[in-house]
């Protein structure tokens, strides 16, 4: 075996041992570790030396302990309310399983927990508060996403006002990359607000709820929106012209005919002020 492959074997072995979710001792005994370094189980000191105060296993254990500690710390910082919903112990257990099944493959930690809400959905299936925990986790993940999302200069409301009235229906708006639209199973956003304000709150009952998470002036914001607003923004985000998007999203909206334009004007003004629109495409005229 070449030098590089000896080094590779040692690195794969150490990684298998220190990343085992049950600790270095269990990691050493796995088939993977034993295959990579057959002599290590019987005589670990043939691979790792001991110090005056620590055995070889204890020294490997330092790395094993730090691996989960560090990454659980990252998840704890990113999902504080999810942790409140599940309780510290259950949250840490879930994190440990998640990290073991989905180790980081990136150089940075920004995307470490991208799959955490989806993982929780499977991991918590059938457990109390599972639906709420997953929804809260989705919001918290979205806040991470928009925080790091690419920058795009928002269109001012003035830009929208310059659109000729007869063109409005055919205009397409480009949404900021720092926006996430979430359809949830329960009103998790209100729950989060209450928990983060240290107010006592009951677990909400399941009902459809919609949230938009966006970055404005470098801060991540979350806001409950209606089903119609959710659908309208989703369709605009898919590149549909405003007219078609409004028709498809608001056709079932029960408001008096003359009230709808006022309502839409309010929505667009608020969204524009929040920096959700970054470009507009006017229809081509022959």
């Amino acid at each position, binding site marked *: 075996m*070449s*030098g*590089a*492959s*000896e*080094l*590779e074997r*040692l*690195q*794969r072995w*150490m*990684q298998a041992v*220190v*990343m085992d979710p049950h600790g270095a001792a269990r990691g050493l005994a796995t088939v993977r570790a034993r295959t990579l370094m057959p002599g290590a189980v019987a005589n670990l*000191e*043939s*691979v*790792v*030396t001991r*110090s*005056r*105060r*620590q055995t*070889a296993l*204890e*020294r*490997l254990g*330092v*790395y094993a302990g*730090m*691996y989960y500690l*560090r*990454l659980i710390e990252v998840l704890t910082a990113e999902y504080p309310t999810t942790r409140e919903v599940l309780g510290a112990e259950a949250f840490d257990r879930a994190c440990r399983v998640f990290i073991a099944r989905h*180790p*980081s*493959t*990136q*150089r*940075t*930690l*920004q*995307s470490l927990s991208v799959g955490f809400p989806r993982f929780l959905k499977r991991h918590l299936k059938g457990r109390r508060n599972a639906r709420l925990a997953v929804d809260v986790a989705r919001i918290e993940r979205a806040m991470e996403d928009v*925080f*790091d*999302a*690419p*920058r795009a200069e928002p269109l001012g409301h003035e830009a929208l006002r310059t659109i000729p009235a007869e063109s409005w229906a055919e205009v397409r708006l480009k949404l900021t990359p720092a926006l996430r639209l979430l359809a949830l199973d329960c009103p998790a956003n209100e729950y989060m607000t209450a928990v983060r304000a240290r107010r006592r709150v009951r677990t909400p009952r399941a009902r459809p709820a919609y949230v938009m998470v966006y*970055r404005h002036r*470098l*801060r991540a914001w979350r806001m409950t929106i209606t089903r119609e607003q959710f659908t309208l923004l989703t369709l605009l985000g898919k590149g549909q012209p405003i007219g078609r998007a409004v028709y498809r999203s608001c056709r079932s909206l029960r408001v008096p005919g003359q009230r709808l334009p006022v309502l839409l004007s309010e929505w667009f003004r608020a969204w524009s002020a929040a920096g959700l629109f970054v470009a507009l495409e006017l229809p081509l005229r022959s």
Partner: protein
Amino acid sequence: MTFSASANRWNLPDLGLGVGLRTVHFRHILEKWPRIDWFEILSENFIDTEGRPLYYLDQVAERYPIVMHGVSLSVGSTDPIDFAFLAKLKALARRVDAVWMGDHICWTGVAGVNGHDLYPVPYTEESLRHMVERVRTVQDFLERPLVLENPSTYLTFRASSMPEQEFIARLAEAADCALLLDVNNVYVTCRNHDLDPFDYLSPIPYERVVQIHLAGHTDLGTHCIDTHNGRVIDAVWDLYAYVQGRRGNTATLLEWDADIPKFETLEREVRRAARYRDTLRVANA
């Protein structure tokens, strides 16, 4: 032998005394513009993001020299070099006009996985050849010398055929890279491996040392952990004084990454280094 401030292999400057740029201090720095000589950034915190950290960094970089220090280069790994990551580092260096950039003498993962920790390599001829080749490749890509730091280590491999300090010295010479000497890491490593830190420091090629790290650590009795969570202990200041004596005044940075105190506390702690520097300046003169 003592070198003058810029007598390193690349004439990289003595930046004076700096601290790590951390999120909790952004506002203080932008409001007070403290009298600190330079900042070191953790490179990975500013790539793959276009949010607030980068916005603040741009402003800080207009006023202070910035040094980039990474934790994911994994120059000792047997995985292929990640050129996409290097391209991001290079772009960030251009953006902040980094005075230099570096990482650690370690590996962080293999088989496509990143453990986000600094794992030691066995100090063998094979490891040395492997790392020399990779450091050269990285330097060619980045078009500048890498500044590589001695890591804190918690185990040693039976396969090692030379001490860590010899490995570092030979790596630096053969790859023609610069060194960041973390004197707290020297203390932690030596405590963990029952070594004398002054023996460790003796063979370091000081003409390649362009930066020094100071930090606090946690002593658990059986071993020390490089936690960067407190003041620098006297024994580490002694090592710093020794290195100053060997190297002369060198860009020095205080790392404090956990239980981070007010910025003023960091300033006071790093200014303690000035006493050693000024004393030696007089002695050298």
